[in-house]
């Protein structure tokens, strides 16, 4: 590849550097990008296709479906927290709103589930848009508090308006009907949730590797520099907040129909914290990290259930240990290790 004309003064400067990547990296970088998307998607697809072979009964499917539902939320939340650097401790509120919109519209008003889902998503989108502007003017811990407050208010409303929502004891949700058949049982839900998750991951990967995605990551790195480059940072923050809220709402709707029952716990503070922990544990700014984080933290309580009273002791220890020794999260840390290993073997 021909070098572009360089001012004479610079060759010396460049030579001084020991950095090994040169012009040839352009092509391999393109390949790598392709494989990060393609390779990641391929392995996710592979896992989804192979996993049912290991799922012996409805309980296993239940865990797998819960992983998928959580992963959809976390992939969206990762766009907000991991890429755009804006924390939210209130996303369970949007998840719960999605769930309850589906629940109420189908149970009380006889609406079709497939109609209630987009209505919930749209409603949550509009709400998120309305609150995003004032809330996202805040930053850091103040933003954490504000989003936490939004989530709590949603949770309180859901749990108080018992005439509509059944109150703290929850309400039943009719089964979802698709093309005249009722969706019931692990396998059917597995494929529905898997397809939705794949779509979510694909959209997320697309977004990140686009001008909009770079603007989001850019405003995370330096808000003022992004503004100066022409990025309307407020607009982009609002946009990603809405996207992540809508993804949470869709997952919530699916969760409501899947579990046939909703309680305000779906929208509560600890559920929000769980989602954020999934993002961070899996690896911030890593779409596949989000999926892995959701999987690990959904599976972990199932393993730890056998430890009975010691469950929380061990869960707390695991959370602390992973975050102390892998502050970047599971996937980025393991990926870096693998890369280092590959480089060593290449030598």
């Amino acid at each position, binding site marked *: 590849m021909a070098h572009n004309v360089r001012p004479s003064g610079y060759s010396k400067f460049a030579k001084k550097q020991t950095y090994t990547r040169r012009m040839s990296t352009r092509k391999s970088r393109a390949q790598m990008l392709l494989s990060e998307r393609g390779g990641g998607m391929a392995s996710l697809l592979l896992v989804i296709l192979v996993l049912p072979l290991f799922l012996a009964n409805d309980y296993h499917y239940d865990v797998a479906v819960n992983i998928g539902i959580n992963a959809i939320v976390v992939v969206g939340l990762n766009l907000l*927290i991991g890429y755009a650097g804006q*924390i939210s401790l209130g996303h369970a509120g949007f998840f719960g709103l999605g769930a309850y919109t589906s629940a109420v519209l189908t149970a009380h008003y006889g609406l079709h589930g497939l109609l209630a889902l987009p209505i919930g998503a749209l409603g949550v989108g509009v709400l998120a848009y309305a609150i995003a502007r*004032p*809330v996202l*003017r*805040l*930053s*850091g*811990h*103040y933003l*954490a*508090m*504000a989003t*936490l*407050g*939004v989530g*709590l*208010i949603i949770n*309180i*409303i859901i749990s*108080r308006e018992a005439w509509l929502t059944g109150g703290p004891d929850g309400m039943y949700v009719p089964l979802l009907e698709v093309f005249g058949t009722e969706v019931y049982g692990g396998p059917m839900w597995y494929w529905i949730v898997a397809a939705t998750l794949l779509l979510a991951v694909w959209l997320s990967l697309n977004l990140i590797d686009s001008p909009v995605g770079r603007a989001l990551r850019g405003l995370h790195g330096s808000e*003022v520099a992004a503004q100066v480059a022409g990025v309307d940072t407020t607009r982009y923050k609002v946009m990603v907040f809405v996207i992540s809220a809508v993804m949470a709402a869709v997952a919530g709707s699916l969760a409501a129909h899947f579990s046939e029952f909703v309680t305000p716990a779906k929208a509560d*503070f600890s559920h929000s*914290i769980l989602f*954020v*922990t999934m*993002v*961070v*544990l899996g690896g*911030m700014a890593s779409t596949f990290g989000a999926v892995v984080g959701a999987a690990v933290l959904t599976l972990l309580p199932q393993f730890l259930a056998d430890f009975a*009273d*010691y*469950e*929380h*002791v*061990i*869960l*707390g*220890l*695991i*959370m*602390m240990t992973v*975050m*102390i*020794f892998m*502050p970047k999260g599971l996937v980025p840390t393991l990926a870096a290790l693998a890369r280092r290993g590959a480089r060593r073997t290449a030598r």
Partner: protein
Amino acid sequence: MPPAFVEFLQFLLSGITSGAIYALVGLGFALIYNASHVINFAQGEFVMLGGMLTWALTSAGLDLPLAIGGAVAITVLVGMALEKLAIEPARDANVVTLIIITIGAGIFLRGVVSVTLGKDFHPLPSFSGDDPISILGATIMPQSLWVLGVSALVVIALQGFFSYTLLGKSILATSHNRMAAKLMGINVGFVLVLSFGLSALLGAMAGILIAPITATNFEVGIILGLKGFAAAILGGLGNGLGAIVGGLTLGIIESLGAGYVSSDYKDAIAFVVILAVLFFMPSGLFGRRGTERV
């Protein structure tokens, strides 16, 4: 006194009772944030430890003052260990990661206490009896006065500590610029451990003071931690006085909300007010309005 006024006064006193508790917990958040810019979501667990350990030590036969001393000492050690073992090694991690670590620490502490001390609620005896004190027709419990009094003393003591002692000044210096503090010969590691210890001390004291009012169990720190965090944010992070004002404001809004609007929605009302305040004052009531240097 007109009945409407007595009613209002009673709401106010009720709000101050809750508010003083939130304030004391919020102060712990502010203190750690001041030194380390970490929000310690295990702060509520310090409160829980103070109460639970005092109960455990008294039921093991210790006198109340001794038990209080022991509980505070153990909680302080736990706080310092938390800094040394969990926060220090993750020094360079970003804010969210640190939050998750402290949340993990909270879960861990709750787990340990539930396994060792059980899951039951336990009361502590009130320090000065249970005879309500009447003020212009409204009443307040003596224990609430203890909470208020200690909060006030703590604020004054902290003010003095930060203004007049070398140690206090080193904490402030570390907060403003860690590198510069290090260069000036301040043992930054020690200062951070100390700030966690101090914050655990405040938490433990809060836990002991409020146990006679609300009773204590292994999960009592969850909601108190949340309210304390809200108090610290409302007042403006890193500002001791702010945390106190924030806590009292929160308590009073809740109680006026319950009294005049709807007890069902009093928590929601409180959070709406917090959101409204943050909308106009993005750094809380007393927070420094920082301008980014570019």
